[in-house]
């Protein structure tokens, strides 16, 4: 039905059409990208990226800041503490949110302490155990104690809930008990605090560790968990504020080099007394 000449002619025209279309696509995309307004740190909105733990707080602070300073835009994005650090280094963001203290490899960056967050052990509300010694915690997390009866509770298997590697809550927790991540024998590994709270709330034999603020808030909301004291220290936000609770992590805003005025003002606002109520609404502990 078709001759090969016809097919060849059709193919040739088809290729030309493809080429033209591709060219149009490229031109369109370049035109669009030259209109973008997302260049951070120089003009346009202030871009803040990083930890998803800190993001809701900074998001609220950004809204409050925008309300006080009309015409200013502060864009908050998430992606994790590492994203915050790498974005600040690559000038993709002016400020990074990091849910830990800066390490030695991060000496090129400046940290501005935003708030403190305590880390506490939680168990199911029906669990009769109220306090654990550090040795018992280490044994449980290393998998050498696997029944609640050994530590004074009613008999039943212990479900060990552990945070994922790389997260600062895990670093703080394991650092305090001087354990290496490879030593832990977890039953369940979780990501966010809420996942930890829900995992423990759904399992009478579970033990885990989460942010004190998140745990206290959940307790108030009748979620069936309770916080364990650590070696006699009660796990409360007041204890963290007073400095008497040992397991604490820092929440920081990080920047690189000299700050543009917008970034400087925003950070100052975030650390001011006016910001306190936002910090507390997110169940963190404000620093003075």
């Amino acid at each position, binding site marked *: 039905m078709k001759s090969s000449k016809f097919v060849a002619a059709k193919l040739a025209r088809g290729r030309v059409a493809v080429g033209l279309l591709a060219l149009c696509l490229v031109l369109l*995309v370049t035109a*669009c*990208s*030259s*209109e*973008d*307004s*997302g*260049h951070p740190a120089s003009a346009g909105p202030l*871009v803040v990226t990083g930890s*998803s*733990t800190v*993001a*809701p*707080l900074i*998001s*609220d602070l950004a*809204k409050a800041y925008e309300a006080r300073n009309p015409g200013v*835009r502060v*864009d*908050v*994005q*998430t*992606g994790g503490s590492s994203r915050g650090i790498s974005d600040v280094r690559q000038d*993709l963001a002016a400020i990074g949110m990091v849910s830990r203290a800066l390490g030695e490899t991060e000496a090129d960056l400046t940290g501005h302490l935003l708030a403190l967050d305590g880390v506490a052990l939680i168990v199911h509300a029906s669990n009769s155990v109220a306090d654990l010694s550090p040795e018992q915690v280490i044994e449980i997390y290393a998998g050498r104690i696997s029944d609640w009866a050994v530590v004074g509770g009613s008999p039943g298997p212990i479900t060990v809930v552990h945070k994922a590697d790389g997260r600062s809550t895990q670093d703080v927790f394991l650092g305090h008990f001087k354990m290496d991540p490879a030593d832990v024998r977890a039953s369940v590994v979780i*990501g*966010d*605090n*809420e*996942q930890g709270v829900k995992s423990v709330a759904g399992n009478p034999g579970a033990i885990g560790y989460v942010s004190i*603020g*998140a745990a206290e*808030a*959940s307790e108030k*909301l009748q979620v069936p968990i309770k916080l364990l004291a650590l070696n006699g220290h009660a796990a409360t936000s007041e204890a963290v504020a007073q400095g008497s609770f040992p397991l604490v992590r820092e929440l920081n805003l990080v920047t690189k080099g000299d700050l543009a005025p917008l970034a400087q003002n925003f950070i100052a606002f975030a650390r001011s007394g006016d910001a306190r109520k936002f910090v507390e*609404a*997110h*169940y963190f502990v404000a620093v003075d």
Partner: protein
Amino acid sequence: MLSGKTIRWSDGVLGAAVWAVAIGTFGIFAWVVGDVALRGMSELSLGFLYESPSNAGRAGGIAPILVSTGLILAVCLGVSVPIGVGAAALLAEFTRSDGALGRFVRVSLDVLSGVPSIVFGLFGNAFFCVALGLGFSIVSGGLTLACMVLPLVIRATEEGFRAVPDDIRQGAAALGLSRASTFLKLLLPAALPGLGVGLALGIGRALAETAALLFTSGYVDRMPTSVFDSGRALSIHVYDLAMNVTGGEPRACATALVLVAILVAANSAAARLTTRGSGQSGNQ
């Protein structure tokens, strides 16, 4: 299809099994959505739909998020449907079934359908946001979603084209219609039900996606002023409230209910649009 005058409700084991499955799927749907509804119903109100979020979403409403989601969906479908229909048409009508281009595209699509959503998110960020310079924006999110949704749209539409009986093609050829006319005036309208399924699957996937959008259209919950602004999608809001913000769960469930309602509307619209001109045995 087998329209007899009497409906035989069941015959034997297959009938029973099939009815059990149908009841089971209704049941699962009721269970999941019912659970969400129980937790979130109390937070729903008219104000929820037109206010902006405050207190990290635990108060206020979701108006900017609805707008952002609508824009993201529009960009996604606006890009994926034309390209998808075009590619499906090519695969079904204009290539030899074992030709190189046809095979390459089919395999690519099948592989694409298995790429994890988080990889799409990271890729979208590296390609659309950084390399193409679009930044965190609704456009980046929509384009990334379009990539994710392409296999579904293309494969379903391709099935739609295959469903068109050959009589139509042969009749058109006998009448001397050009291939373009045959395609545009006869085959495309007849294949609409397939496109409808592709749309339903695509819309569903697009609205359900979280990880891909988190790194592309972003987290900002302000009302967007253009498609180049960052905008938070409904699924991200649900995720943030449920897993990230303490005490946000009731509102997460309320937002999820709104999302389900939007899904119902979008799918019904898609179905209506694609069966009007089909003339098929109206089983849609």
